């Protein structure tokens, strides 16, 4: 790798950025941008890159086209995808065998390959331009958008889109108070879950007396189905670094830590590389850009405990102790890492800082609602057509996210509920689809913004089963310090499990509610205080479903095995033997063209017959 020249003054950096920006503008070569985040790699983007390189070599196009390997583009459903610049053609689900077509047709003949284009489900038409794909159209990708433009391992690429300009602005023209004031005015709130105003948090840490102060980037993303922070660290690590350097300068911190899960190897790799590049360039270390500001950055790899996302547990983990929360106050801003004033922010929060500094407070505050400014990245997963990372302005309705961006529910099924905020969040029912997505509205609906998980559920989802799933996660991830959380989640799980197995009795629901409320009230940290949300919100919005389980011993969604029964509808059965063949238990008997019979005593409710039947002759009740 090329050696990076150390930059000693602000002016030198300005010049370097200017030259890189010009270089990008004057670049006329077509660029094939391949998404290769963890999700893209899992779908085979590395093989696609290899075959693209081969195809380019075969066609002797090495000087005429460039392959750019970027982080995640957000559209997971379409992985691995390629964006062809400058035409901005979006090819989805590219296979290694398509590489030849892309080079020979699109690059040489400037022709769009139809079968690789995205099909708009609503109109049935093919869409070629990335910007016209409905998934991207309604998004406001002010943070995530850069992911498609830059190679995360190349620092110059980040500079060429104007990266580190905010740092120059902060170091040369702004006092520390001004920076904090700007962040305060922008209305930025913590993106990690609680939504505490970032500017005020910084101010507390700045005002605490002390020579040594720390800042920490919280990348301990543990919610099932959430990967916003991972994508940012993988796809745009320098943006997070820039935010942290500005933050450290404003707060007066000399050292920082990035607490990232060890389960994110690519994120760790990219952020480590970014740190070493920034060190070489002189953006980290002593006397940054000729000022008297010193800042060092380290990485701490977490071992994958959900509770370590909680500030005080995270600090304990960085210090090398067991990740267990402690009483606040004293808050980390007063007594944090090694007893010194510490400021902790989430990855996404840090990534917002360069934008706010560059464009001023209005850069963020013009987007969003009264109480919640800017955009929020959600990972839209579950029963949804367009799975992926979506960045939307605050205040957008759930309906727009799920139906316009997400493309609705697959298989023409009905939407039932959406779970926001990860395991500590709650389920929001169909009736509340027009709820604006911001901190206050979600809390009012019994859920939370959380770090941005958004799990969509269709009519075939049993809400009691969902509550059971999250309780199982929480009873495992509770640190176990407070009896209210450790035993509370365990006992709630036991009661809900009993209900799903048909062992529920009258009064269970009231008892469950009382226990959930106590768990919420009596626990020390955020995990315990929100652990009741999956239960309380499902009881609140889907009480009839719980009652059906308890009173009628039936699972209306047909999920809870102990409560359902498969049977054959005689009128529909054609006697095709399809179900008979797939049944692993030999529970179905019958002859060709005669109505089959299902032996309940042998049935293990595996649903194989249900899936095999082409005549809707299998009934679940």
């Amino acid at each position, binding site marked *: 790798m090329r050696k990076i020249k150390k930059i000693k003054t602000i002016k030198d950096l300005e010049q370097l950025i200017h030259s890189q920006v010009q270089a990008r503008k004057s670049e006329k070569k077509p660029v094939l941008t391949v998404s290769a985040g963890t999700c893209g790699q899992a779908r085979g983007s590395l093989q696609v890159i290899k075959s693209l390189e081969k195809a380019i070599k075969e066609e002797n196009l090495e000087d005429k086209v460039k392959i750019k390997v970027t982080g995640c583009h957000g559209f997971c459903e379409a992985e691995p995808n390629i964006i062809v610049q400058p035409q901005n053609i979006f090819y989805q689900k590219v296979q290694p065998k398509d590489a030849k077509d892309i080079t020979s047709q699109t690059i040489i003949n400037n022709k769009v390959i139809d079968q690789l284009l995205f099909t708009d489900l609503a109109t049935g038409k093919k869409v070629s331009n990335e910007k016209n794909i409905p998934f991207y159209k309604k998004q406001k990708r002010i943070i995530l958008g850069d992911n498609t433009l830059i190679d995360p391992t190349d620092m110059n690429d980040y500079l060429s889109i104007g990266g580190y300009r905010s740092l120059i602005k902060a170091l040369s023209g702004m006092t520390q108070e001004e920076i904090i004031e700007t962040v305060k005015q922008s209305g930025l709130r913590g993106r990690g879950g609680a939504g505490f105003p970032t500017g005020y948090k910084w101010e507390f840490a700045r005002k605490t007396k002390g020579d040594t102060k720390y800042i920490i980037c919280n990348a301990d993303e543990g919610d099932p189905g959430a990967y916003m922070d991972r994508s940012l660290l993988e796809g745009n690590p320098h943006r997070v670094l820039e935010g942290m350097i500005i933050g450290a300068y404003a707060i007066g911190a000399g050292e920082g830590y990035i607490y990232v899960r060890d389960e994110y190897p690519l994120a760790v790799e990219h952020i480590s590389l970014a740190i070493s590049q920034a060190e070489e360039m002189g953006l980290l270390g002593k006397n940054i850009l000729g000022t008297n500001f010193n800042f060092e950055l380290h990485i701490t790899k977490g071992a994958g405990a959900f509770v370590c996302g909680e500030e005080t547990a995270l600090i304990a983990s960085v210090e090398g102790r067991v990740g267990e929360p402690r009483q606040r106050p004293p808050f980390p801003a007063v007594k944090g890492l090694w007893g010194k004033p510490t400021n902790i922010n989430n990855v996404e929060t840090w990534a917002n800082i360069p934008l706010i500094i560059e464009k001023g407070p209005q850069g963020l505050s013009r987007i969003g609602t009264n109480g919640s400014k800017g955009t929020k990245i959600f990972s839209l997963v579950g029963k949804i057509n367009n799975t992926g990372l979506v960045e939307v302005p605050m205040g957008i309705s759930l309906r727009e996210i799920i139906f316009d961006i997400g493309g609705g529910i697959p298989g023409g099924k009905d939407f039932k509920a959406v779970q926001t905020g990860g395991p500590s969040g709650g389920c929001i029912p169909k009736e509340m689809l027009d709820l604006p997505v911001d901190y206050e509205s979600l809390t009012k609906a019994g859920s939370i913004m959380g770090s941005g998980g958004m799990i969509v559920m269709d009519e075939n989802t049993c809400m009691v089963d969902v509550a059971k799933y999250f309780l199982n996660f929480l009873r495992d991830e509770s640190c176990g*310090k407070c009896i*209210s959380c450790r035993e509370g989640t365990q006992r709630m799980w036991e009661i809900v499990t009993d209900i799903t197995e048909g062992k529920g009795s009258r009064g269970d629901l009231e008892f469950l509610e009382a226990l959930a409320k106590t768990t919420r009230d009596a626990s020390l940290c955020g995990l315990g205080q929100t652990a009741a949300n999956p239960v309380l919100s499902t009881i609140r919005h889907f009480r009839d479903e719980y009652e059906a389980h308890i009173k009628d011993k039936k699972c209306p969604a047909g999920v809870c095995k102990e409560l359902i029964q498969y049977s054959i509808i005689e009128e529909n059965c054609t006697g095709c033997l399809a179900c008979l063949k797939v049944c692993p238990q030999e529970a179905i008997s019958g002859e060709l063209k005669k109505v089959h019979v299902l032996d309940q005593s042998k049935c293990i409710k595996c649903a194989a017959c249900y899936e095999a039947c082409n005549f809707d002759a299998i009934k679940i009740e």
Partner: protein
Amino acid sequence: MRLAILMQLKSNEEKMITLKINGLEVRAEEGQTILEVAKFYGLEIPTLCYNEGLSHYGGCRLCLVEIGEEPKTKLVSSCTYPAEESLVVRTDTKRVIEARKMMIELMLSVAPNSKIIQDLASKFGVKQVRFKIRNEECILCGLCVRMCAEQMDGRAIGFQNRGYKRKISTPFDIRSEECRLCGGCIYICPACQLRCQGPQADTAVCNACLTMDPTCLDFYDDLQCWMYDAGRCGTCIREKPEKSKSKKQTQKSKQKEKNA
């Protein structure tokens, strides 16, 4: 006596803070916890994992109090929450009592034989346990862990795992070399009803009786034998009859000399 304390408090005037507990305006030193202040003023808050000689843990959640003013009140454990200027604390609201009762019920469901927890249950009117009983005889209050580390400087036992799998054990579940068999953990435990249960599996925390060299004194009376409840192990008599006898004699003769 009270006057003397109040005089002393006056001399520390600048470090004092004022807060309200149950409507009573009280003064406290900076750095004191709510529990300490309440105790000083004679206000009772039940505790279990709290011990004056150990660091504050806040795991049993019995000492919950309600702080703040309506509608923004919350429950905190008074043993860990520091007294703050003009804080409003209430120790016996409906919310506190309900939470406390639920905590006792939860504890009782895992350690139903504990005398201490049974007493708490009867005091607070917890009449039934609605959970399935899981007789683990441990409520993971952490008293033994802190006792070992802080008072005995042993650090032989600690918490293992998290969540519902959490338990107290020695490192790697084998007999710890750090353990000096002082019995401190057993002494302070509120839940192990039988205390000593004689020799146990290798993985057990104590197993003091399996050692070749118990920490017993050379001579002792019944009350000093810490295995008295379970039936004395007899190691001292069996292995060092001579020694204990001879020491006893020398001490006796020394005393005689003194008296003379």
